[in-house]
């Protein structure tokens, strides 16, 4: 007869509470640490034109046509992120860039935590593995989060994964949250398409998580249908899908926007993604194999990432619950039996004190990292160093209404600085502009055969360009002169000659004196 441990009910309840506290401590600690990665200044160059649009929508409503550029856009304006833009403008208006950074950083962390909680309850995944999943994926996606609409989609995907996990446990009621989620999501970011795709995959592939649980596919199918309809409740209606298709299928986009290119595996951040992908496969193999839904989801995210590096964050998010689940399983199957560690029980009160102390220490450490980024001086310094602020100030003072050329990465900033008068050449809302406008921009940016002709035919007489850029060297050869040098951001303000120059007798020399500063 085997010995059984009889545990009084009270002690059982205390053990359960202690386990929950421990789990919470690990998750909270990991979430706090990840905050140091996700709270970012305005690093994404698109934030500025989104902000400009938010301000425009707040005062004038959603524009019918592209409002900032003098290039003719191929398609009517699709306000597919109007709600995000209005909220962004509200955050910046209320608390400056710092508030927007803090809020979007918190949203990214919430996404990671919600994704971690998508592990099956029956798997009893410990807090340690949840924390590992959160931290590792937080590190992998650190370069692509911050103040950007994509973070909204990460939160949406996390919510979808959570709902699917609960549905697989037999808690069907959760699926009725989806239509409301998609209604909001479709008005904040076009990444809702990914959420619909995940649901469509779950419908045929996902199995019940517990043997005795019957999975009801009809409610999920109905929720998916309602969610699809909910996405049509947006200013563009069904045209939103045309916009999404144009974004995904336009080959010119991969020439303009770095994020749509395949990952560069020389980059250490991409190597982290590579390491996480390898770890996931290893954990699948030694952890008894993945569930087919998990496998298909992760492999699809991997394939999507090889196509476009912006999908690194999607893969990382999908990997959070899987690393936790299969890592925990692999540990129990392979490693734990080989360890002969003695487990000494810690008194519950001491464990609580340790947990509180650890959380406090982590919070303090994170605060010392994050808070300095959120001051107005830090935001201003970042803006000046990353974007041609001083150059734009000069232009505002001298040729506010004239058309400007700049690289697409700064186009969004100039749209924010000069929202009226249609003076901007192009920014990264590539799906609206269409191929013709994009090629026109690329003719100049890539110095193709007719680059000089494009500038004259579009009546562009001023430019803000990088002081080490090919445009600066090229414009100099056709007689453009330097008005001023913004050394902080490394930009030049250049102006075309009023008459055709007879001779440009020397190469471009970037001025370095204070007299020539913007």
């Amino acid at each position, binding site marked *: 007869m085997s010995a059984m441990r009889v545990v009084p009910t009270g002690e059982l309840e205390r053990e359960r509470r202690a386990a929950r506290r421990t789990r919470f401590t690990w998750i909270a600690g990991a979430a706090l640490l990840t905050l140091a990665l996700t709270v970012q200044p305005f690093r994404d160059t698109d934030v500025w034109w989104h902000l400009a649009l938010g301000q425009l929508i707040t005062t004038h409503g959603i524009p019918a046509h592209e409002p900032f550029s003098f290039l003719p856009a191929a398609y009517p304006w699709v306000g597919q992120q109007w709600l995000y833009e209005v909220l962004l403008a509200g955050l910046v208006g209320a608390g400056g860039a710092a508030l927007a950074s803090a809020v979007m950083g918190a949203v990214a962390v919430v996404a990671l935590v919600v994704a971690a909680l998508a592990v099956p309850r029956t798997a009893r995944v410990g807090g340690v593995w949840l924390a590992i999943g959160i931290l590792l994926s937080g590190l992998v996606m650190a370069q692509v989060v911050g103040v950007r609409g994509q973070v909204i989609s990460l939160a949406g995907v996390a919510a979808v994964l959570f709902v699917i996990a609960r549905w697989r446990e037999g808690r069907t009621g959760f699926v009725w949250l989806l239509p409301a989620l998609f209604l909001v999501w479709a008005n904040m970011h076009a990444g809702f398409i990914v959420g619909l795709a995940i649901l469509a995959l779950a419908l045929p592939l996902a199995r019940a998580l517990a043997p005795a649980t019957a999975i009801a596919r009809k409610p999920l199918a109905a929720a998916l249908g309602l969610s699809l309809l909910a996405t049509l409740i947006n200013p563009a209606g069904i045209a939103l899908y045309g916009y999404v298709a144009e974004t995904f299928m336009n080959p010119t986009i991969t020439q303009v926007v770095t994020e749509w290119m395949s990952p560069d595996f020389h980059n250490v951040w991409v190597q982290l993604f590579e390491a996480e992908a390898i770890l996931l496969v290893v954990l699948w193999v030694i952890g008894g194999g993945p569930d087919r839904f998990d496998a298909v989801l992760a492999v699809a995210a991997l394939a999507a990432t090889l196509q476009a590096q912006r999908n690194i964050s999607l893969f990382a998010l999908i990997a959070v619950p899987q690393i936790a689940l299969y890592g925990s399983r692999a540990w129990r199957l392979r490693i734990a039996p080989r360890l002969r560690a003695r487990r000494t029980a810690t008194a519950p009160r001491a464990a609580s004190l340790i947990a509180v102390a650890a959380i406090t220490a982590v919070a303090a450490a994170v605060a010392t990292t994050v808070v300095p980024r959120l001051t107005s001086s830090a935001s201003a310094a970042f803006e000046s160093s990353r974007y041609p602020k001083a150059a734009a100030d000069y232009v505002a003072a001298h040729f506010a209404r004239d058309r400007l050329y700049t690289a697409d990465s700064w186009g969004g900033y100039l749209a924010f600085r000069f929202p009226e008068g249609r003076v901007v050449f192009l920014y990264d809302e590539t799906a609206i502009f269409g191929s013709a406008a994009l090629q026109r921009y690329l003719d100049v940016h890539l110095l193709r055969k007719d680059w000089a002709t494009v500038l004259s035919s579009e009546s562009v007489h001023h430019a803000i360009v990088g002081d080490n850029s090919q445009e600066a*060297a090229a414009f100099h050869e056709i007689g453009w002169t330097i008005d001023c040098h913004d050394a902080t951001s490394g930009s030049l303000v250049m102006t075309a000659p009023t008459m055709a120059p007879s001779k440009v007798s020397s190469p471009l020399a970037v001025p370095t004196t204070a007299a020539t500063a913007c």
Partner: protein
Amino acid sequence: MTTMAEPVVRVHARSRRWLEELVSPGGLFVSAIVILALFPVTSIIRDPDFWWHLRAGQLIVDHGALLGTDPFTYTVSSHAWTMHEWLSEVFFAVVQRAGGLGPIVLILSVVTWIGIVCILLRAALRAPNRFVLGLGVLLGVIAGYPIWGPRVQMVTFCFSALTLLLVERHLVRGGRAIWLLVPLFLVWSNLHSGFIIGLGFIAVVIVAELAGRRLGMPDNASSSRVRALIPVLVACAVVSMINPNGPGILLYAFQTQTSAAQQALILEWHSPDFHDWNVLPFGIMLVSLVALITVNRRLRARDAALVLVTAALALQSVRHIALFVAAATPVWINQADLLLRRRRGRAVQRRPGAMPPLRLRVLTFAALAVTLFAAFVAGRLVPAMRAQPGSLAYAQEFPVCATRWLATAPRPLNIFNQYGEGGFLSYQLSSRGDKVFVFGDAALMGDALLYRYAAVEAVQPSWESIIRSAGTDIVLFDTGTPLANVMAHSTRWVNVYHDPLSVAFVPVDKQSALNLPPAPASYPPGDPCSQLKVASSVNGGTQNP
């Protein structure tokens, strides 16, 4: 009591079994794939580095010694030159003098094909289903398409595949054939610095098998056979040092991996672009392999290690796709075969249908093989072998017409050139005394020069000072590049030559001193340069090699 006839009967029975297998439907499929694999690996020489290797080989043969410094550039002529491929270069020079480029194309194509055959043989050690075997080899051949072509790197591909075959054969069957690796590495280390990959593969297999045994992974090789690889590895490393560069050759091979400039600036060292249709099959092979491993959950330690290492290398640099194909194709085949066996194990087995007579099957096989091989020879091999450096095929890839014009210049010139054309220019013009700014031995060029070149190619503001300060007489670049399109507007430079592929500029203040001949206004009918105009306008422009 055995008789003399019994061994003969056994051999005859074995031969018949082999023949039956060869002419079975699966055997036909595999044989067809093996012959079809000849097509993508055979072409004219597109490797831009081939030309300076050939010229270097000619100089080695003429001087009877390796070159201590490079005779091709006017920028880094003082740099010490580690001629790590001297034996390949001498081989090219000797063969080219004997029979032109044709035999070189043939030999390098066959070398690549042998590598593919080694992959097949390694996969066949585990007796997979023949259709899976053929499909896997086909996938590997397609995945490697961006890299195939007559080039020295294919020596490393072939020898890597051969190394893995011998290692696998040793681990599965034992024996002394593994010691063939020692003379292989002796030759390899003098042919191409990629021999370090071979050493790495052997080391990875040893470590993986030892670790896999401890982790309880399936299908481990016997520990005695694994241990027997260690002295083989040591012997291979020792003989690798028997080359003109001595033990230093081992460190040289790592230079490229640790050079930030080479990794950042040279296209082949860039990560694969999965928007490129040529690269997509590699992505499909990688993702499908991950899926197969996940479904089967049965992977040998050495397979896991080889796939991991080569996948990481291939994702880092597109040129390493060939190594991934060499290492991972047999793993893909094995995993696909495992999946097929599991599915067949569940399915009701169908009785195979009656096969046609053996003689008819042999005739079918022979007809198929002869037809495919004849198509290869007529449609692919002969045209590739017959193309000469001055032909239209090469004129569309390299500045043939521009070099013809430059050869009429009254004196040697310092040419600022496109990186990928330095080799061809050196081959064609170095005997005249013309020098180039840069060519494809990036380790010899050094990071500093590579960064300077990149600044010019990217038309950074310092472009002109870099060109002039190096002592450049003439800039020869591809038509339609940013540099060419900017120089066309510069009043300090004058366009002195233009064809659909190349354009040349000289400084205005040097134009009269250089006294260059005028660019040809036209070419005789049938001349490749006149056809280049027509062909390029049909093709809509040229691409950089």
